[in-house]
């Protein structure tokens, strides 16, 4: 039997488990939904808990563990500015200030039009191009305040 989430409900096999090596995998399911809908709604979590026969708390525990998963509605584009040392040395604080001013929001907030969510993140592996940030899956390095406006303009 398949349900709306494409999860096998055959209890006689291991496939129902959130952690088996054959069937569906809780983290993979959450990642897919996050990519598709931009966040994990209360409805989704409740329905997933039912179909996996898993407590909501367990699912919430996984969501809250991973910074790329969110149970709150987010902007269409997510800006992640690196705040770690290699970027800090290259004046990432100026970039953070510049973007917060440009968008009128603080880290952790979403613009009222839903266009951007701004977060500060840990190392994104672009230290040779510091200061660096990600927008959705794209990495931008060697950032300067002059570059910011143009980069943001390309995201609608």
């Amino acid at each position, binding site marked *: 039997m398949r349900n709306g989430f494409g999860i096998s409900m055959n209890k006689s096999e291991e496939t129902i488990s*959130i952690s088996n090596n054959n069937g569906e995998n809780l983290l993979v399911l959450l990642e897919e939904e996050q990519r598709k809908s931009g966040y994990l709604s209360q409805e989704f979590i409740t329905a997933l808990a039912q179909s996996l026969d898993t407590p909501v708390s367990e699912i919430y*525990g996984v969501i809250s563990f991973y910074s790329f998963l969110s149970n709150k509605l987010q902007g269409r584009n997510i800006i992640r500015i690196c705040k770690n040392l290699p970027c*800090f*040395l290259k004046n990432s604080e100026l970039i953070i200030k510049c973007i917060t001013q440009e968008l009128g929001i603080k880290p952790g907030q979403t613009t009222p039009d839903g266009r951007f969510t701004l977060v500060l993140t*840990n190392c994104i*592996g672009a230290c*040779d191009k510091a200061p660096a940030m990600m927008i959705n899956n794209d990495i931008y390095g060697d950032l300067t305040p002059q570059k910011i406006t143009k980069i943001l303009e390309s995201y609608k």
Partner: protein
Amino acid sequence: MPEKHIVLRNCGVINPEDLTSYTARGGFQALKKALSIGPEQIIKEIKESGLRGRGGAGFPCGLKWEFTRNTKEQSKYLICNADEGEVGTFKDHFILENDPFSLIEGIAIASYAIGVKKSYIYLRGEYHNLSGRLQNAINQAKENKFLTHVNIEIREGAGAYVCGEESALMDSIEGKRGEARFKPPFPTDKGLWQKPTVINNVETLMNIPQIILNGAAWFNQIGTERSKGTKVFSVSGDVACPGVYELILGSSLKELLINISQSDNIKVVQIGGATGRLVPGTAIDTPLSFESVLGAGSITVFNETRNIMDIVYHTMEFLAEESCGKCTPCREGTEVMKLIIDKFRCGNGTQHDMQLLTELSSAMSLASLCGLGQAAPNVITDSMQYFRDVYESLIPANLRGVKA
């Protein structure tokens, strides 16, 4: 010159999207040779080569393979750790971007030698843009019948540094919170889904094809007595030429910093990222090897203008945020350390705080569950050792010399 390209030999040379450009450089000849000499001989070669894990811990690679091969369990797994989250590390990104084929060949050889039918590449979520290229390399290798013995699947992380720790990584592949496990049992005994599992870093696996092609004796003569081969370093911070450099193990840190990446007025260098060690500018004349300092090869340089307390605070802030929270010493310790360092940053430290930092450091390194918590105090102990005067200068004058 200490630079030598074994791991990076194809980077910038081949077309990373096209397998024929890889085979034109001798690609998949090592797999062919491996299949002809058999698993025992492969493991013997890797053991004799002296190859040690490149993710930071430096465990002998051949031994890990042998433990897992020799278990009675039928199902076992190989995981390639591509969760490169250590602050200041970007070498695996460079490797995956420029030569995904050598990695796939390394995984193919390892899988055959260990006897696994299923391998995973755990790619950090931040590197999502590389997964298409990696999948393309797998597909092309499959179409050309190089992967008939093993199925390779990419699993993506979702933004959690601790998942680079091998036991947390396995929990994450299982779909759970990526929390560290108690050891023993070790992964080679009970790993992914409680089955024997080998976990190798990207760079470790990149070495495999060249060792099989050229032989253990060739690899064994490169490097120092206990550190064979090369290491790929990620250099960032106050340097004129940041980037990825592959050096023979045992090369001088000073040479890498001064001659290759061109830095000067060095106050301190952080080697191995947030859980790594601090080396003061006066002590950079030291070899880069497992016997000395290495980690996963990240090198962040700080010049004389930098504030040591900023370095320590940012490092602790990172660790407090990325602690998985499962064990108390790490969860609470990193948080308290961060708060204490912030007091010093504001010039409000006390003698008692310094004593508390020392006590916490020893408790955490002794009692934490995994490498994160055990190594988290490194930045505190090292900075207190080399820059004690800075700590003391941040205690208000009326409190200096006052015992707790």
